[in-house]
């Protein structure tokens, strides 16, 4: 087990190194730079700026400098916001995104898994069809449409939930639905189909022939066998939702990371773009490692400690 984790941490480090390198050079290969403006910037001003941020040095030197900083988690200064470092940006914007992401994640699991199980148990009944209809709808409506609809109905018309910010629990409801709508629908359908698949297996017939009550057949024998694809999906999901969404944060005016990600691309704010990409990659790799460990808990056939 410990050996598995250690070897995985090494391979994650390698993956991150590749990501850092590729992102760095791809980013620099895009035309334009952090100080390119609509108006022509006077060449001497540009030179001074580039010298200040050491962008005048050869690319490989810049790369070496960046990696040196990265090793001590110094992500460098933002090229757009004067006097603000990337570490500051993450420190300020991540809590909002992470809080909303965590709430969304719990919401997706607490609704999606039971809905999927219920749908599978009551296969082809009216509630099943209703759930499947909602799930298909949820997967097809884009988050910005959903967000706008939610605000119109629940804030503007019914005045139940506030339209922006994250101050009380009420503030979380609409953005969590908007952010998690797609994943919720996906998880519901995934749980339903993998439950049904498990229900068709021979060992379910064995359990019934043994006299095991239906409830236990579902929740003990079928559920555990159907969790693998679900865990595979929801592991990376948590990394995705806690790093924020541009659209949802924009619509609900949440001061999260999503905005910085998009802005850094259009502004060629090299350090911010690098920093947020690396943060995302680290979270994703960690989530996948945890998923691999959970696999072993669920299914002894893929247990790693032997």
């Amino acid at each position, binding site marked *: 087990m410990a050996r598995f984790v250690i070897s995985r941490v090494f391979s994650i480090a390698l993956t991150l190194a590749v990501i850092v390198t590729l992102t760095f050079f791809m980013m620099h290969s895009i035309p334009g730079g952090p100080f390119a403006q609509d108006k022509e910037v006077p060449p001497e001003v540009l030179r001074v700026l580039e010298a200040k941020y050491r962008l005048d040095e050869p690319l490989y030197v810049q790369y070496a400098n960046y990696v040196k900083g990265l090793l001590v988690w110094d992500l460098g200064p933002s090229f757009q916001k004067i006097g603000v470092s990337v570490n500051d940006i993450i420190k300020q914007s991540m809590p909002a995104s992470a809080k909303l992401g965590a709430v969304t994640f719990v919401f997706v699991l607490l609704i999606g898994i039971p809905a999927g199980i219920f749908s599978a148990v009551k296969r082809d009944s009216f509630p099943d069809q209703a759930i499947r209809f909602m799930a298909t709808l949820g997967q097809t409506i884009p988050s910005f449409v959903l967000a706008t609809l939610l605000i119109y109905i629940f804030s503007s018309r019914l005045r139940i939930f506030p339209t922006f910010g994250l101050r009380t629990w009420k503030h979380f409801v609409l953005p969590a639905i908007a952010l998690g709508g797609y994943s919720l629908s996906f998880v519901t359908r995934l749980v339903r189909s993998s439950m049904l698949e498990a229900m068709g297996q021979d*060992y379910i017939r*064995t*359990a019934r*022939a*043994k*006299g095991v009550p239906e409830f236990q057949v579902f929740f003990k024998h079928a559920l555990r*066998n159907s969790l693998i694809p679900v865990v595979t999906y929801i592991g990376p999901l948590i990394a995705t939702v806690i790093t924020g969404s541009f659209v949802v944060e924009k619509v609900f005016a949440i001061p999260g990371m999503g905005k910085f990600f998009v802005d850094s691309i259009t502004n060629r704010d090299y350090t911010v773009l690098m920093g947020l990409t690396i943060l995302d990659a680290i979270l994703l790799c960690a989530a996948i490692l945890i998923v691999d460990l959970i696999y072993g808990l*669920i299914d*002894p056939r893929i247990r790693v400690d032997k």
Partner: protein
Amino acid sequence: MPAMDEKNGAARPLLAVRDLCVSFFTHVGEVKAIRGISFHVDPGETVGIVGESGSGKSVTSLAVLRLLPYPGRIMSGNVTFRGEDILSKSAGNMRALRGNEISMVFQDPMTSLNPVFTIGEQIVEALAVHGGKKSPAEARTRAIEMLNLVGIPDPEARFGAYPHEFSGGMRQRAMIAMALVCGPSLLIADEPTTALDVTIQAQILELMAGLREKTGASIILITHDLAVVSEACSRIIVMYGGQIMEEAPSEELFENPLHPYTKGLMRCIPAFGGAGRERLVPIPGTPPDLLKPPAGCPFVERCREAMRICLSNRPAFYGEGRHRASCWRLDPEAPK
């Protein structure tokens, strides 16, 4: 069923199936998988049900346990176990019967055990659901006892092993241990050796025969392999096209098959140490389409001895004592 009792000269049968009909309602129509079969199993007896794929043998066993997969349904007939009507039992009472009074061993031990629970957990579960007031330690002891009984070496250690750590033969032994742990009086084994190597097959059959003697349980052995039933069963039922073609005590059936289908099956078995150059004779054709079951004998299209009446009318059972067959050729008025 007094008539049957007289005929067999035996006590009340353990299991009696009468005029059972089972259909599957698929989207292409009603598949009449079982069309009116009757048979019984006496206490302590091993009965073989033989037939090719689609003859309805597995469906029969699942119908007895009321475990027919969707969209299957029992259309008519009755099934009694110890004189009690099984088909009218509540779901809860039926559940109490399964695994406790009647248990089942399935064909493929690779897929019939749940991969995420240990062998021990799965055996103990059978004890637990049948309300035995056993402590976990007692249940464990009993499960290990069963593993030992079915010939699993080092049962203490194997109790905590997962199915994927067992070989095919060992898994089937574990399945048998699980089926017998509550001391059922009827064990239905649906092709228990089909997925196993020939050498393992023999071991499993021997094990089942030994356990029957020890526990006194009746066994229904379902197979497509005549060689298997000939060794293991005292009585054999031959099924074809959802109906019973012939039923006789084992030796009687092999010495004196009455039905052309049974005779055909015999010609398909290689004779060991015989003259050596005998050819195996296959039965040409395919089984009937049960979406549109034939009006007469289901075997008519493949039968060497078919007559005109076989096409239009279903033959009754002919024969004496415990040997009966459903064939117009056995009618006293049939041409010889």
